[in-house]
């Protein structure tokens, strides 16, 4: 469906390109200015923004001839990455017009993300637009498209539960722990063993204010992990003592038999005076004896529980994503309507200006050619000219308002009006423009045929 939007996107993502290709195109924040200027320097490109994350590199642009701009950009990108254009082309996708808007909306709403619903992408899209504004490569078209993208992203977040539940093992563990403890400030996390996943979860809990204690059969390994996370070590031989201090235990040893047995935990619980204890067992084979879960005030989650929770959340996100896709469709349709309206508005204003201006000039000439006319007669002359002009304007105005937004005939109708009356309507966009530019017809238009400064009361 053509929308008459001079907007396009060229890019690659985790869906089309392997990591080593994405790496070649990735850019550091301090390079953004230089890269954007490079893009903007290309002949057909009017406005441009760059979205660069670890999963995608996308260039959003506005150009009167989007296809030419994409071709030029593709060459430019291949040169920058130092690869053959053909080879890069295999990984690149290009969308123009409405399809590009649709793509941007999906990306911002986190529907195109590796983990659907992940929250970072909206910030990254915002950053991309802010960068373009800062480096003066953004204009009205980008502003309109990006503000539409922010709106749909917020709507999806508000009206669906797409990002409600976490999907990674370490964040699921933390979510579970939140059901037990009121925050982690002042809580003690005991890390038994030094697996990578345990490391991640402990680090996240530490970031939330928990104190981390590391214990490991090999002391040097414990010290290493403790130093990295910012915790302290506890001798492995005194596991009981370590358990007494802990509120949350993350177990990830490579032990063949369960290390945290029921008698051990029971003894610790007695010393701990029954305070709540949460054991996160991410080791395979398990580190926590299954019978431990029967103890009062003790909660155990093993890797299967956590994985199942993460999977359920992921499935939930997929269902929510279907609802979100429907919202994107709605928002794209709404956006198009508004966008077309914005093209029609300035044309109507220009048309009014042109006709009323002409009528006034003719009335002034007539008045000048008839010396001796009284004030009343002069006024009548101007009023007559204005009345005729407005009558003549009425039908074309209505036709433009009604038909200008039509997806098929609209653009040609607007163009015809502009040509017939030689209207000089500024193109949408231009650096520094805003989404609202041109939205207020009437403010700058000639509202009356009477000469300026002639205050004539009726």
């Amino acid at each position, binding site marked *: 469906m053509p929308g008459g939007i001079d907007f396009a996107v060229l890019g690659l993502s985790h869906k089309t390109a392997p990591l080593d290709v994405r790496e070649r195109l990735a850019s550091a924040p301090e390079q953004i200015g230089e890269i954007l200027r490079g893009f903007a320097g290309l002949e057909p490109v009017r406005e441009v923004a760059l979205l660069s994350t670890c999963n995608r590199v996308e260039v959003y642009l506005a150009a009167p001839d989007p296809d030419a701009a994409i071709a030029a950009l593709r060459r430019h990108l291949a040169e920058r990455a130092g690869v053959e254009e053909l080879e890069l082309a295999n990984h690149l996708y290009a969308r123009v017009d409405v399809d590009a808007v649709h793509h941007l909306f999906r990306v911002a709403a986190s529907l195109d993300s590796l983990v659907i619903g992940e929250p970072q992408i909206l910030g990254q899209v915002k950053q991309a637009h802010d960068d373009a504004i800062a480096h003066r490569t953004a204009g009205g078209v980008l502003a309109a498209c990006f503000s539409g993208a922010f709106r749909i992203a917020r709507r999806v977040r508000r009206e669906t*539960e797409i990002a*409600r*539940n976490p999907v990674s093992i370490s964040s699921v563990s933390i*979510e*579970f722990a*939140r*059901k*037990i*403890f*009121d925050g982690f400030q002042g809580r003690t996390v005991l890390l038994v063993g030094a697996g990578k996943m345990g490391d991640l979860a402990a680090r996240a809990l530490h970031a939330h204010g928990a104190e981390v204690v590391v214990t490991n059969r090999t002391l040097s390994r414990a010290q290493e992990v403790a130093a990295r996370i910012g915790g302290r070590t506890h001798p492995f031989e005194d596991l009981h003592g370590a358990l007494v201090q802990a509120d949350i235990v993350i177990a990830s040893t490579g032990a063949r038999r369960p290390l945290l047995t029921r008698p051990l935990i029971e003894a610790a619980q007695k010393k*701990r*005076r*029954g*305070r*709540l204890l949460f054991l996160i067992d991410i080791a395979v084979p398990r580190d926590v004896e299954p019978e431990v*879960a029967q103890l*009062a*005030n003790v*909660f155990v*989650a093993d890797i299967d*529980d956590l994985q*199942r*929770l993460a999977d*359920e959340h992921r499935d939930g996100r997929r269902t929510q994503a279907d609802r979100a896709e429907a919202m994107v469709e709605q928002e794209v349709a709404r956006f198009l309507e508004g966008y077309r309206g914005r093209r029609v508005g300035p044309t109507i204003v220009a048309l009014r200006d042109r006709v009323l201006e002409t009528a006034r000039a003719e009335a002034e000439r007539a008045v000048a050619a008839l010396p001796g006319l009284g004030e009343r007669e002069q006024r009548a002359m101007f009023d007559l000219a204005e009345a005729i002009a407005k009558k003549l304007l009425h039908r074309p105005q209505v036709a433009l308002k009604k038909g200008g937004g039509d997806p098929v005939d609209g653009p040609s109708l607007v163009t015809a009006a502009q040509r017939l009356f030689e209207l000089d309507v500024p193109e949408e966009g231009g650096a520094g423009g805003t989404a609202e530019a041109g939205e207020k017809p009437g403010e700058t238009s000639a509202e009356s045929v009477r000469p300026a400064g002639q205050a004539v009361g009726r």
Partner: protein
Amino acid sequence: MATLTAVQILAYALASALFLGHLLTTRPGATRVARGVLLIAFALQLVDIGIHCAGGENPVSSTREAVGFVGFLIAGAFLLAGLRYRLSAAGAFAVPASLTLLVLARVVPAEPGAPRMGALGMTHVFLATLGVAVFAFAAVLAVLYLREETRLKKKRFDRMATDETPLATLDGLGLRCVSVGFPVFTLALVTGAVWIARLGGLAASEARRPEYLMAVAAWLAFGVLLLARVGAGWRGHRAAWLTLGGFAGLFTVLLLYVLRSLS
């Protein structure tokens, strides 16, 4: 007057339904409406209490008024606690409790021939009312604790809502309620005993009335709970059950009072 009562009951019933509905669907934002309705119900009851007071019938002047007042205090405590804690699930238990008590209070006929209670009698009823309300709230928290605990133990995550109150919060709040409620209820028992002694003591048959024994049993349960908590580190699971046991006793006392005034 009858209309005001009916509207109050309706508002409490609607709020109960909304909170129960929230518990089943866990839709975010649904509790705001429920909370609003409850606030209206609460305000209506406040007005009602004001009108009764103006008519010389204060909230602790009779069992009937006191029972309704307990419901009022529970609703108030829930609204107040909701300002600081995420307790929307508690609404599904607290609000129906308020509704039940309000209906009970309106069912009980006024006691025309009741003796004038005097200051001591009123103090007793007031303290007992307050104590029961606080314990009732502790019981609501205990129910929530056990429900959440079961879900976590069984790892039934599918319905896990992100706005649940953490177990530690429920446990801590419950303890606070019991440690406030216990001295209040102790004073209520003492003033009650003194009051009865002033009235000339009880006949031997009356002293064994089940509600008196039950009240003392409930008081003992809460006392044991506090001691065990401080002394033996009883918390969480066992504390929740003991709280429920104590409250069951109190509820029976309340019920017996109501039944007696009906007969």
